[in-house]
């Protein structure tokens, strides 16, 4: 009960703050307030789901889904407001796509909970939604007019389907991970996987952005135009924030340490030291979370505003968080992954008690993919139709297109193995996780690492 009281107090406090904000701005239904309400309710829901995940008190779930409903209403209103203000469906920028993604995620959470009884799913999805809303607060952009190529109904159809499909893939991933928990996969395996994921995040940041003398290079931002600064077509201007590179490198090393200890524990010459190495690895995870939080805070503080020198041009240039959405999501995502591992480490028996049986999870994962696959197909088809209307070619093998096709092929492989070869359980779960990894690469990696036509998204 304490938790409910605490959450209630927190919500009351946030509502009070929001009320002050409203009085100040004088407009009750502005998008900022709606987003704020969304955040408040999702945060409440997330806390309650987490409370349910940790303590297993059934009554929390009722309040949690009520909070999710309220958050969803506010979220819907925010989308409607944005749509009305912009005159086009909200899919044109990273901000608008996050708005739609969070909405889909909340809907799917409620569906999974009500229809399939996976009550604990909110423990995973709501924190993701909260991160999304927080990112939106930081990335808040004004309504951008659409360049000619984006003014097409088919584009909206394409992006809507993409968001739905990706949300379904995210859900199937979460379900597959839960299946692995219920299938008695060892906790230390999860340790290895979660550490490897965070390591990958920091490795890609350090490898691509570390500059001489410990700086971290970020895209410069033009606050007047609210856009990135381009030196020439397709070449962005980068500024270097001094010392932040060292912090990222240090975090990289600490994040790598659990993996090193895990490797030592698995080494066959140290059988008798195995447990102590694993304990060390778990401590290292804890330490890495502290350092990751520090890295995030420093990143937000330094990159939020301020002017920094550039290696490519003379003078000082401003940057902002909105210029580096992927680094920001990477940092937040890393913390989230590590926290989920800690939840598993400390509360595994409770989780096992609360989750549906392995068989059920296996089946629901399959059903979610059965939902995701046709959506992926239609998404690709709508995108091809749009490309044909705009560029005169339905398929031009640009990286985003190619990776969308690869995602489709991976899920097609999953379905074939499952239907004709009868793959169940672990192998199917690994396949579902692989599918989602490809989705993440298509969504973030391609935009961030590979060049192409989809420069808008």
């Amino acid at each position: 009960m304490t938790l409910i009281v605490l959450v209630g107090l927190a919500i009351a406090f946030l509502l009070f703050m929001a009320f002050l904000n409203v009085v100040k701005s004088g407009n009750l239904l502005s998008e900022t307030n709606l987003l704020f309400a969304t955040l408040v309710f999702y945060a409440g829901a997330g806390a309650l789901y987490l409370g349910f995940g940790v303590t297993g008190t059934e009554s929390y779930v009722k309040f949690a889904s009520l909070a999710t409903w309220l958050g969803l209403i506010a979220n819907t209103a925010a989308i409607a407001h944005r749509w009305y203000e912009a005159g086009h469906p909200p899919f044109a920028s990273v901000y608008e796509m996050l708005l739609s993604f969070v909405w889909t995620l909340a809907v799917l959470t409620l569906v999974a909970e009500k229809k399939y009884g996976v009550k604990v799913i909110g423990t995973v999805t709501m924190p993701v939604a909260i991160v999304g809303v927080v990112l939106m607060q930081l990335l808040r952009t004004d309504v951008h007019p659409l360049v000619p190529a984006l003014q097409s109904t088919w584009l909206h159809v394409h992006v809507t389907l993409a968001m739905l499909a990706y949300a379904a893939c995210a859900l199937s991933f979460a379900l597959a991970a839960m299946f692995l928990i219920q299938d008695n996969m060892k906790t230390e395996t999860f340790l290895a996987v979660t550490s490897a994921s965070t390591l990958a995040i920091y490795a890609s940041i350090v490898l691509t952005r570390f500059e001489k003398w410990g700086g971290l290079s970020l895209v410069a931002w033009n606050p007047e135009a609210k856009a990135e600064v381009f030196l020439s077509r397709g070449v962005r201007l980068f500024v270097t924030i001094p010392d932040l590179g060292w912090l990222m490198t240090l975090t990289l090393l600490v994040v790598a340490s659990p993996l090193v200890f895990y490797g030592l524990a698995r080494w066959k010459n140290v059988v008798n030291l195995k447990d102590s190495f694993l304990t060390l690895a778990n401590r290292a995870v804890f330490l890495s979370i502290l350092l990751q939080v520090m890295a995030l805070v420093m990143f937000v503080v330094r990159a939020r505003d301020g002017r920094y020198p550039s290696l490519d041009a003379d003078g000082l240039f401003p940057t902002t968080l909105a210029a580096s959405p992927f680094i920001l999501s990477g940092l937040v995502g890393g913390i989230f992954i590590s926290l989920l591992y800690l939840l598993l480490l400390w509360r595994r028996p409770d989780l096992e008690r609360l989750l549906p049986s392995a068989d059920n999870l296996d089946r629901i994962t399959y059903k979610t993919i059965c939902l995701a696959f046709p959506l992926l197909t239609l998404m690709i088809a709508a995108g091809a139709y749009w490309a044909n209307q705009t560029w005169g070619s339905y398929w031009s093998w640009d990286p985003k297109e190619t990776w969308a096709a690869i995602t489709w092929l991976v899920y097609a492989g999953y379905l074939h193995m499952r239907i004709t070869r009868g793959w169940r359980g672990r192998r199917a779960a690994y396949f579902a996780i692989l599918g989602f990894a490809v989705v993440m690469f298509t969504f973030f990696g391609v935009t961030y690492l590979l060049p192409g036509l989809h420069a808008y998204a």
Partner: protein
Amino acid sequence: MAVDLRALAHKTWRTIASIQTGVVLLILVVILSAAGTIVLQRPVTEPDEMLNAYSPQVLRILDAVGLTDVFHAWWFLGLMLLVSLCITAASIDRFPNSWRYFSRPYKYPDGSFRRALHPQKSLAIADEESGLVAAERALHSLGFNPERVVREDHFGIFAERHRISELAVYIVHASLLLIFFGTIVDGFWGWRGTLNLNEGQTSNLVELRDGSARTLPFAIRCDSAGQENYKDGTPKKWWSKLAVVEDGRDVKKKEIVVNDPLLYSGVRFYQSSYGPNGKVDKLALVATPSNGSGEKQEIGLALNDAVPLDADTTVRFAEFFPDYAIRDGQVYRKSNELENPAAHLVVTSKSAGKDFDVWFPAMDEVADNSKAPYQFQATDLKMGHFTGLQVSHEPGQWGVWSGVVLIGVGLAFVFYVVHMRFWAVPVCDPKTGKYSLWIGGTANRNRDAFEQRFNNLVALVEEELKTAPRTSSSEQVVTVAGD
């Protein structure tokens, strides 16, 4: 030997049709197309960029194996053909079985089938007829159309729904092949290029991707083109008014915008860019005689226009530079952007017997503005614009789109249309002589939801058995199963 050959052919067929081959091919496609997104591709990269990114040796190797143009390499096409072959073979291999299943439904469950089936249920009944009628009524009320199966020694009830679902996967495979077919047709007979037209210009020459030109059997004229901006200056809309000219006549006219192309005899014209062509459309001037006598004149000049100012003097618009630079007494064109324009007028005076070079702006090295019999003031400069059109001919795209529609339908059937079957058979216990009604059912997917439905049916049958055990009416469908 002939037997060996047949065995070999059989073995090859089995290999091609097997799911393992399919998966290996899919993995290959995934790896190679991923490579095509990581290695820079020649068709979309500037040559300098390629040279900067890779050392000459690496580039030579990449070029030799085709990794710099994966998606047009012969081996990629070969791989796609193999995939198509594999899909076709696997479908042909499995189709007869599914077709048998589809065309000759299993209507009467025999003993061993009845024992193994799940879910099933037995209900006590008074006699055979009342049990069958109850089952029929229950199935009717659930929207089924039950069928009486009568054989020589036994009979029962069979009902089913959505038998087509068993064939849905072939629809999906066929539509994939249709899409592949469409892209291959486009690969061989389709082409893409660009056509840049100045306002008022007519052309039938399309510049293709590989640098060659293609002559269309008709010409395109751009009557006008323009751009609309948002308040913040970003482009909102590009439009061009195009006309198709065939045999000297205008046969079609359309204003195209981005996302809304012009289609004429299989060739599509897409608006892709718009901008200044660096050519001047009209220069407006005010001319004042240098000696102070006479009127001011307002004149408008296009390039190479010559206008008489008085009986003695003519002015000709000789040169225009949208972005000029001057070096050693020579004026050069720096770019086509309207950055730093310069105009060159030649004023000819018959009485003086000489030409004066008038420049805007007046550059000391080349201009003799002050010596000319007229002083000029430039009041307006209208620039010419070009419209950039993408031109494409894709004869195979109809295969692609029909394949896309078909795949949507097929997937809907594969995932959401369930083939469900119910059987009801009256069974007499040889020991007690009492009758019971065996009810069984099966679905090809979503079995847990089906079980719910099955229980529902059983409850309905029980209800029917309790209420009115009437005798059979004559309206029921009776089939004599021949097999």
